[in-house]
């Protein structure tokens, strides 16, 4: 850790040439999404006659991760939404050159003293605020959908897609992940894919920014039930906003082991909040398609995590746990949506 602290201090000196006596300490790895190594640290420096201190976050690429993502897009999404109605932490510097810290990374400001854990959200004092958290969770998701990607400056950063092609691009991609990474056959998800291709959804009402992993566990909340930051934009892209809503309703995020989505509220209530905030409609046939898509995408991620652990250098237990713990639940979610659970 001392070597990484020193390298970080050297790098920040390049970015803050007016600052003196740069020092990095209290570096500690934390949980922070599955695709990057995340560390918190303290930066101390002198500015003119004053000593200053900042709590910062380092997000560094690992050798292999659960999700193959582009850090430039993640960084751009944080930048674009900072200061808007979608709360996100401030990001400071993006670095592609691996010579500084061994691999590409970016640095942002830590929002300290907050909680993200899906298991903690089920406990007091958070459990008393589930309705309040849910109102914000799906309202913020609606706000993401309502924002104009062009005005956010993200059209040139994220790959464009026509409203009628959103579904096909995503389904092709995740079917490709299954084709390349599955270690054992997936008859349920393959049946779901065939059904989805025979019954494509209506074109997107609009093309918006899709967070890509919007769920309980990827936002920061406090003991009063206020959401302060949406995290883990590593799979952000342009697409059908119903994709995010479908993902947020995925059965595998029913952390309370009951029907409440995200461990918080009923599916229908979440949809109503989202519709109100986004100004869009979640037509039953369309949201059904995107919920089923969420099971394909989920299985794609769990399959590729197992593949990465078995074939790659990354032996993080999260890669095994996500596969072992979620694949069968994901299959059951797909069967339920197809009316085949029995």
């Amino acid at each position, binding site marked *: 850790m001392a070597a990484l602290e020193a390298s970080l201090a050297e790098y920040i000196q390049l970015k803050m040439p007016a600052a003196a006596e740069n020092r990095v300490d209290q570096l*500690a*790895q*934390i*949980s922070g999404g599955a695709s990057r190594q995340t560390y918190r640290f303290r930066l101390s420096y002198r500015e003119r006659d004053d000593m200053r201190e900042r709590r910062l976050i380092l997000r560094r690429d690992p050798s292999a991760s659960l999700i193959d993502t582009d850090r430039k897009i993640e960084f751009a999404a944080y930048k674009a939404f900072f200061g808007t109605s979608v709360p996100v932490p401030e990001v400071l510097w993006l670095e592609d050159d691996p010579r500084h810290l061994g691999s590409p990374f970016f640095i942002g400001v830590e929002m300290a003293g907050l909680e993200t854990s899906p298991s903690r959200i089920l406990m007091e004092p958070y459990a008393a605020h589930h309705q309040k958290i849910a109102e914000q969770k799906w309202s913020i998701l609606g706000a993401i959908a309502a924002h104009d990607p062009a005005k956010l400056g993200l059209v040139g950063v994220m790959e464009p897609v026509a409203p009628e092609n959103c579904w096909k691009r995503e389904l092709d991609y995740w079917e490709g992940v299954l084709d390349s990474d599955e270690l*054992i*056959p*997936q*008859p*349920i998800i*393959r*049946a779901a894919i*065939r059904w989805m291709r025979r019954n494509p959804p209506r074109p997107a009402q609009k093309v918006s920014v899709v967070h890509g992993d919007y769920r309980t566990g990827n936002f920061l909340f406090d003991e009063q039930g206020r959401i302060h930051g949406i995290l883990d934009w590593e799979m952000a892209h342009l697409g059908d906003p119903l994709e995010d809503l479908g993902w947020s309703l995925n*059965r*595998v*995020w*029913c*952390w309370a*082991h009951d029907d409440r989505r995200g461990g918080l509220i009923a599916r229908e209530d979440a949809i109503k909040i989202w519709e109100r905030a986004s100004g869009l409609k979640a037509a039953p046939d369309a949201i059904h398609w995107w919920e089923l898509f969420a099971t394909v995408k989920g299985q794609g991620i769990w399959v590729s995590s197992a593949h990465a652990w078995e074939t790659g250098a990354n032996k993080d*237990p*999260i890669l*095994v*746990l996500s596969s*072992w*713990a979620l694949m*069968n*639940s994901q*299959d*059951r*979610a797909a*069967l339920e949506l197809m009316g*085949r*659970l*029995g």
Partner: protein
Amino acid sequence: MRPRVETVFQTMAMDLIERVIPAIGPSYHQGTVGMIATLLAIVSEEWDRAASRRIEENNRLREMFKQAAPAINDPALRSRIFQLAKTADHDFHITALENNNSALRAALIALHAHVETQTSTEARKVEAAIWHELAKSTERRRLMSAQF
């Protein structure tokens, strides 16, 4: 092996959660040990049923393939399904049973896709049997700790 493997792993998992994790400082390492404890708990649940559920499923798939063969119009697929219906599990190592299961489930995907395109009553019966078996397959794999 005595003490029984599933009991040992379950006890070790609880030991990690109740005794070791509170003694660890940084949250990242707590999280890592928590995940390892959960993996041990999953193995403890899977250990005793691992061979049994694979043998049961392989036999059910072979029986279904025997019944399904007449509904298959594609000669190559019919031959593949016939051949697999005649196989049996002779090696009861988990890896061997898993390999047989993968061969059977890969053929199940092809059979399912085929009957979906057919309009005959026989095809509908096979399709219904496949859906029934797929639902059963998730019951066999279900974990006590699963969200769904």
